[in-house]
């Protein structure tokens, strides 16, 4: 039977939760990197014992630990993220030019096939690649140097590249998302990039249908259908079936279509999950109820999943990297909250249990299915 390992990044350290395939009884280790912010940690699909971590804080900056034994021990590897060439400027909140400055790694995406190759999405928005297991990082500067780069403006959380998706059928094709620039696609391994934001509509920018400027919160893909992407935008849940060339809104009957997370069921490519958040000024769940919404039709028709989740006086948030799915059948879905709970469902979302209740605020959740 497969085991499951859940990697939880929090504002004050990392925690590793493990269970067998029944996903009923959990062992918890941590805090790892106690006191540090763990924006993200993710295991290599090619070698699940290889785990990469983004560890940072405001005082001492960015560190990137790596484990080669499934999180038992850690080695600190390279933390130099230097923009290529003259850094130049992007737009600041008030529209004035502002120098690009590295702040932290938001998201780590290991290669699907090579445990030594890993990508990092950073703030200020850029993508870096390491081909030596994190020792050295090189910017794929074609993204940041795109003609639209000087127009990119930060979202409330900063100008962050927070999502990296690799096409399983063609590793040279990748998708990234930046708050608040939008989504981009490369077909050549990251040398050149194209904005893929047609169909997005954002009322908070002067031209609501502009080529860039959209605050995309998260992208998700089912590995069997790499041309179909799902998006939780600032407001609006969207989908594309042509790799981002055109997006269509699928918010349907959601009580609010603001939110951060979105993910796809491992076994059902049209079954997707979101956690609606009340609004951009009230970052907590709607009506005091923690509800995951599931669509089995790829959007538009949504059902509230509430069994085992608090349905009154609940005012937590679920951040963009804080939902993940395992590879078992039925699919396990996991998410972490700003209140320090990690909830898990072992039945496609029908029912939920809190694996842990009282961690520091959760920043990220990733799941590994171990054979």
């Amino acid at each position, binding site marked *: 039977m497969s085991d499951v390992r859940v990697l939880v990044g929090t504002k004050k350290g990392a925690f590793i939760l493990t269970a067998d395939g029944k996903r009923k009884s959990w062992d918890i280790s941590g805090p790892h990197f106690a006191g*540090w912010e763990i924006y993200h940690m993710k295991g290599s699909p090619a070698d699940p014992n290889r785990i990469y971590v983004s560890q940072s804080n405001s*005082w*001492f900056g960015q*560190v990137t630990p790596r484990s080669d034994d499934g999180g038992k021990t850690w080695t*600190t590897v390279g*933390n130099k993220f230097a923009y290529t060439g003259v850094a130049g400027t992007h737009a600041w909140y008030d529209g004035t030019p502002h120098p690009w400055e590295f702040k932290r790694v938001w998201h780590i995406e290991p290669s699907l096939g090579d445990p030594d190759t890993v990508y990092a999405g950073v703030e200020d928005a850029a993508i870096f690649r390491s081909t030596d297991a994190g020792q050295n990082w090189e910017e794929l500067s074609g993204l940041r140097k795109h003609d639209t780069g000087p127009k990119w403006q930060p979202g409330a959380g900063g100008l962050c590249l927070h999502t990296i998706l690799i096409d399983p059928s063609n590793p040279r094709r990748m998708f990234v998302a930046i708050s608040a620039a939008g989504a981009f696609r490369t077909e050549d391994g990251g040398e050149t990039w194209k904005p893929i934001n047609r169909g997005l509509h954002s009322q908070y920018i002067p031209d609501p249908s502009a080529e860039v400027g959209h605050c995309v919160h998260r992208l998700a893909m089912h590995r069997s259908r790499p041309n179909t992407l799902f998006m939780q935008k600032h407001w609006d849940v969207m989908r594309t079936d042509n790799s981002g060339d055109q997006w269509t809104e699928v918010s349907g009957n959601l009580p609010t279509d603001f939110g951060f997370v979105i993910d796809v069921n491992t076994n059902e490519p049209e079954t997707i999950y979101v956690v609606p958040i009340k609004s951009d000024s009230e970052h907590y769940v709607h009506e005091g109820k923690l509800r995951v919404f599931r669509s089995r039709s790829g959007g538009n028709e949504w059902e509230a999943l509430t069994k085992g989740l608090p349905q009154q006086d609940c005012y937590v948030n679920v951040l963009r990297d804080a939902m993940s799915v395992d590879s078992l059948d039925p699919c396990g879905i996991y998410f972490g909250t700003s209140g320090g709970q990690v909830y898990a469902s072992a039945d496609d979302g029908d029912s939920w249990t809190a694996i842990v209740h009282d961690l520091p605020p959760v920043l990220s959740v990733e799941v590994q299915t171990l054979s």
Partner: protein
Amino acid sequence: MIRVVLPPPLRLLAQTATEITVDVAGPVTQRSVLDAVERRYPMLKGTLRDHDTQRRRPLVRFFACEEDLSSEPPDAPLPNEVATGKEPFLVIGAIAGG
């Protein structure tokens, strides 16, 4: 032998006790002490100073002998008490945030 006191987050990172010691050949300055610290604990590179400019990170402070030496030139001699090992060179995370 130079005594250096690290703040808790960096002790955790370097897997050290509160106080470490390093040997410095030549003048004892902020730069030579930090170079020696980073040679012995390479995982601390970038956490105290910028990789390229070597500029002190904004929320890192350097104290010794009850003085704040953070704004002193990096090549200025540190107090004799630090150079002789009588007093430690303190790396402090500024009180900010939560």
